[in-house]
């Protein structure tokens, strides 16, 4: 078990002081995490409407649906360090990264619903969320994020900008050859790239223990001379602090960093997953370190907020999510002719 024990309040205060985080930052993080959680829970609800019996093609939201419920701290903690002009490339499980990067909730929801008002006018969908304004993109192909983020990092370096580029990926994706190819080149060329591996123990139904020769990936990063850290992905502060170092390193032109975050998804790989490959006990076990509840407890204990304040933040998040979902539902579908447009610029 890798999750670090909860620090004492004294230690925690010390850690937070040192990190430069202000109480308000932690409240912002809290708000983002609950926004993600609510957003995904709502998407989940709507996704299953009209899908009884379960059929991917029925209902309002069609196709596969990969939710990151449980993994919010990784997205929020790492991306709390970035600017809007930094690049983030995400995966088939992209909502939490998108929201943490500041992608507009309404356009995001509308895209997931396949509406004309969506980020991509309904052409991309849940696995292909693009937001030029927020410098966010993703791909449904496992392992595809690494080189693309390295390419953005390359461009930043070439253009003498102090931006960084993030590649998110799962622990399954990190077995893919693009991971090592990217580590090598980003390290050799000292690109401002930050790779964040979300280790949720499974790639689809496949437990990592069956297909990995090492327990973790971070040691692989080290073998490419990339500073590599293992962080508690259920602790937004831990993720934040480590990523901060990585971002500073990147901005200063020192090169890439690998961050491996231990985390867990409380829901199936995709909606409809029978979860034959794991036990209820395991899920239960991990839910005890729910990153949102953990932060909540800390905020209260540290007296950074009282329950009322947190309730207010949750309320706000709920409202924003609801507005986004409503917006998506009410938005029109694109017209069929649109399908034939826009192959070429």
């Amino acid at each position, binding site marked *: 078990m890798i999750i670090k024990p909860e620090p004492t309040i004294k230690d925690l205060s010390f850690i937070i002081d040192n990190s430069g985080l202000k109480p308000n930052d932690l409240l912002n993080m809290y708000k983002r995490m609950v926004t993600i959680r609510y957003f995904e829970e709502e998407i989940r609800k709507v996704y299953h409407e009209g899908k009884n019996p379960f059929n991917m093609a029925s209902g309002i939201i069609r196709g596969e649906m990969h939710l990151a419920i449980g993994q919010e701290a990784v997205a929020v903690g790492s991306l709390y360090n970035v600017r809007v002009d930094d690049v983030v490339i995400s995966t088939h499980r992209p909502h939490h990264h998108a929201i943490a990067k500041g992608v507009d909730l309404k356009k995001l929801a509308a895209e997931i619903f396949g509406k004309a008002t969506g980020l991509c006018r309904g052409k991309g969908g849940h696995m292909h969320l693009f937001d030029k304004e927020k410098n966010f993109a993703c791909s449904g192909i496992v392992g595809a994020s690494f080189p693309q983020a390295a390419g953005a990092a390359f461009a930043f370096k070439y253009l003498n900008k102090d931006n960084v580029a993030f590649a998110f990926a799962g622990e399954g994706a990190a077995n893919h050859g693009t991971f090592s190819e990217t580590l090598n080149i980003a390290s050799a060329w000292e690109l401002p790239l930050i790779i964040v591996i979300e280790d949720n123990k499974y790639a689809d139904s*496949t437990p990592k223990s069956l297909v990995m020769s090492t327990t973790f990936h971070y040691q692989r990063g080290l073998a490419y001379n990339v500073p590599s850290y293992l962080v508690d992905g259920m602790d937004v502060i831990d993720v934040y602090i480590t990523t901060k170092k990585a971002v500073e390193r990147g901005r200063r032109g020192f090169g890439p960093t690998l961050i491996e975050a231990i985390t867990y998804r409380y829901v199936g790989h995709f909606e409809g997953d029978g979860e034959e490959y794991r036990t209820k006990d395991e899920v239960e076990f991990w839910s005890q370190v729910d990153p949102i509840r953990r932060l909540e407890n800390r905020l209260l204990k540290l007296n950074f907020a009282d329950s009322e304040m947190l309730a207010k933040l949750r309320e706000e998040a709920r409202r924003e999510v609801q507005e986004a979902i409503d917006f998506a539902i009410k938005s029109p579908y694109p017209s069929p002719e649109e399908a034939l447009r826009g192959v070429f610029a």
Partner: protein
Amino acid sequence: MKIRGIAQAISEGIRQEMERNDKIVVLGEDVTYWGAVFGFTMGLFDKFGRKRIIDTPITEQTFMGMGVGAASVGLHPVISLMFVDFLGAGFDQMFNHMAKNYYMSGGQFPMPITVITAIGGGYGDSSQHSQVLYSIFAHLPGFKVVVPSTPYDAKGLTIKALRDQNPVIIFGHKLLTGLPFLPFEGIEEEVPDEPYEIDFGKAIVRKEGSDITIIGTALMVHRSLKAAEMLEKEGISAEVIDLRTLVPLDEETIIKSAKKTGKVLIVDEDYMSYGMTGEIAFRIQSKALRELKVPISRLAVPDVPIPFSEPLENAVIPSVKSIYDEAKKLLMH
């Protein structure tokens, strides 16, 4: 035994051959618990265990290459490429090695490898999970390209593949699998319990007709049959041909039909240009030019990525309605 859809039929074919031939192993992502997601390996893990049914890491190039190496020392790997859309992560080992090593080695290294992959859209899975792409394999020498559309065919073609000494790619359409979480446009039918083979290179006339020939594969066969029913009601007699394998291709059956009807519509769920429709048209005009009463017509995905949104997706994948319409247009010509 009654089988609904091609997934169970394919896995049943593999199971029977695995019992007969202990050189067969199944490799790929999520082939154990999840039956390769689209059910092509379902039930095999329970029966044969992890020694023969093996989950790989997400490393298409490597497990395809391992298939090449394992075949070269006597195994017959069955490899799942979960979605055909992922070919780009492992294509070199497929087209430069699996498909060529037999030829390049002057006949020393047969490559008895069966790749099973899922194709097709129509359920909202967008541009990177809805493609068909079989034309690419059919274009490159060294692959046999198999596209079953019924349970009976799926089992027989799978068994044939598992007894073939060459790389055979079986393209299973998702909407024909018969799995509960997907729409089903295929059929349920009686399938022999015992193993049997269906020859490659034999198209089948799914419906006889005399006014127009409609040629397709996989899901498009079923949609064409429905369109043919609509035409039938108007007194138009459409012949519907299911190609079953693109390589080898049964020229005889399609040319015979083209000569009979003089009007041909080719329906494809792959991209339109530089693909299957052009090839079939070439072969027909080559042997039946004089008999063509009107130019050969085609329907396919009109050279755009498959978009996500339902109305957009529906606009690009040939439907019963668009097949019917195109057939009518051809008949009016």
